[in-house]
């Protein structure tokens, strides 16, 4: 794969894929990076709200497919290397897990990190009572008490989704809610939802798994016995990813004019941008603006294409890589007696997989089956586990989806 690009987009969510597509449609050689999978936050949503128009709703999967298909049709190259650092310059240098690459312009569209409460012992409870994905982990809390922490539209939607499953949902709002009157009405009407404003989570009680949270309100502190807590506060932007770019208190990158930053060849789109409206429609607009701005940044000051009217066209532009470029990690010396199961840990996925695996075990008279799983449903699979499976098993049956 090339290491020299006209435009590099860091992040494969809605903003990133839109920026990449717009730039590629303008004839630029574009690479889009996402260390996990295309789709960004959409991957963890059950329903899209206020899309394709305000008040509307849609399933995220179709949109992700469309975004990827349109980007690829425009000639965008997708990479799943992780971009760890961007050094501004002409060209910019990007440090990635696959080596260093250069780009004439860079669009930062990483989105925000998952929510966190900022409390000791929190990370150890991820997947053991702490989650940031109602769509992924909600069924694990069927009939149990949960708390949702936050103040925005996303918080409200996640609480409403959990209310379909949990025995009770306590929404802990650190200040006052910022969600819309329409969502406020739905929360009020929901049977099992209680909203506490001015509520701070000050402690986590756990014994291997979460058993409760300590909540401070104007009336003092109290224990809330919940088996699950879903924080949508403490999300932060990609400060430090790009040399010298200032950020706001939430570590989102500051821009000077729309998507432009203090660095002429670096642009920011989507939730990573300070002040961005966190709606799908605004993110699409942001991505398009960033893609156009990145293309414009490559043009010389007098306008027209780079190179004084002569443009060198890469003859491989838009051509799919040959097989040699496709990353394949075939297993070592395993034979057909070595079969394993790998579950994504979503509700009932493991049970489905084991049931299917038992049938195969009996059919092939296998002595046993290997087994591995993701730590939790909303996290990426561990690379070492994937490598171990590929090296030790001839076939691995994988559960994806739920």
């Amino acid at each position: 794969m090339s290491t020299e690009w006209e435009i590099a987009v860091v992040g494969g969510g809605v903003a990133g894929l839109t920026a990449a597509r717009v730039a590629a449609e303008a004839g630029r050689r574009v690479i889009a990076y996402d260390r996990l999978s295309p789709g960004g936050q959409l991957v963890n949503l059950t329903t899209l709200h206020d899309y394709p128009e305000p008040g509307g709703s849609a399933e995220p999967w179709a949109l992700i497919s469309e975004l990827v298909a349109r980007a690829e049709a425009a000639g965008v190259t997708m990479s799943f290397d992780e971009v760890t650092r961007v050094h501004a310059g002409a060209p910019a240098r990007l440090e990635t897990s696959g080596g260093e690459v250069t780009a004439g312009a860079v669009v930062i569209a990483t989105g925000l990190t998952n929510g966190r409460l900022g409390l000791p012992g929190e990370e150890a409870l991820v997947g053991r009572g702490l989650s940031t994905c109602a769509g992924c982990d909600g069924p694990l809390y069927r009939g149990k008490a949960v708390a949702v922490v936050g103040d925005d539209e996303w918080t409200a939607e996640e609480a409403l989704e959990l209310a379909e499953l949990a025995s009770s949902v306590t929404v802990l709002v650190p200040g006052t809610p910022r969600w819309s009157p329409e969502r406020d009405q739905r929360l009020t009407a929901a049977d099992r939802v209680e909203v506490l404003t001015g509520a701070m989570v000050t402690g986590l009680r756990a014994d291997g798994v979460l058993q409760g949270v300590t909540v401070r309100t104007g009336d003092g502190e109290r224990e809330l016995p919940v088996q699950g807590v879903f924080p949508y506060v403490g999300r932060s932007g990609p400060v430090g990813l790009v040399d010298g770019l200032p950020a706001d208190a939430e570590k989102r990158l500051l821009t000077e004019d729309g998507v432009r930053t203090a660095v002429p060849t670096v642009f920011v789109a989507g939730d990573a941008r300070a002040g961005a409206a966190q709606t799908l429609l605004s993110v699409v607009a942001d991505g398009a603006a960033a893609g156009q701005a990145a293309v414009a940044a490559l043009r010389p000051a007098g306008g027209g294409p780079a190179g004084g009217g002569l443009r060198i066209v890469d003859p491989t532009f838009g051509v799919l890589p040959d097989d040699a470029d496709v990353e394949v990690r075939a297993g070592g010396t395993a034979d057909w007696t070595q079969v394993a199961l790998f579950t994504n840990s979503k509700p009932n996925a493991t049970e489905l997989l084991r049931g299917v695996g038992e049938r195969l075990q009996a059919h092939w008279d296998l002595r046993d089956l290997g087994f591995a799983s993701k730590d939790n449903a909303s996290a990426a699979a561990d690379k070492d586990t994937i490598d171990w499976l590929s090296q030790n098993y001839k076939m691995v049956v994988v559960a994806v989806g739920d």
Partner: protein
Amino acid sequence: MAPLLVTSTFLPLVEAQAKARRVSPRLIVVPHPVGGLNEGELAAKIETAAAELLTLADEARGAE
């Protein structure tokens, strides 16, 4: 080889990711959802998916 058990709702996402990664996984599509089903409901889905997997697995082994 790594056959994927995927529920129908997630199929477009899996196909998009596979396309982006330039791979063509062997897919066994199970009607969505799986989460929240009781034992009997899940058993029916296991039966259907297992039948597909056995065929696919036999073919793959026989092709070598």
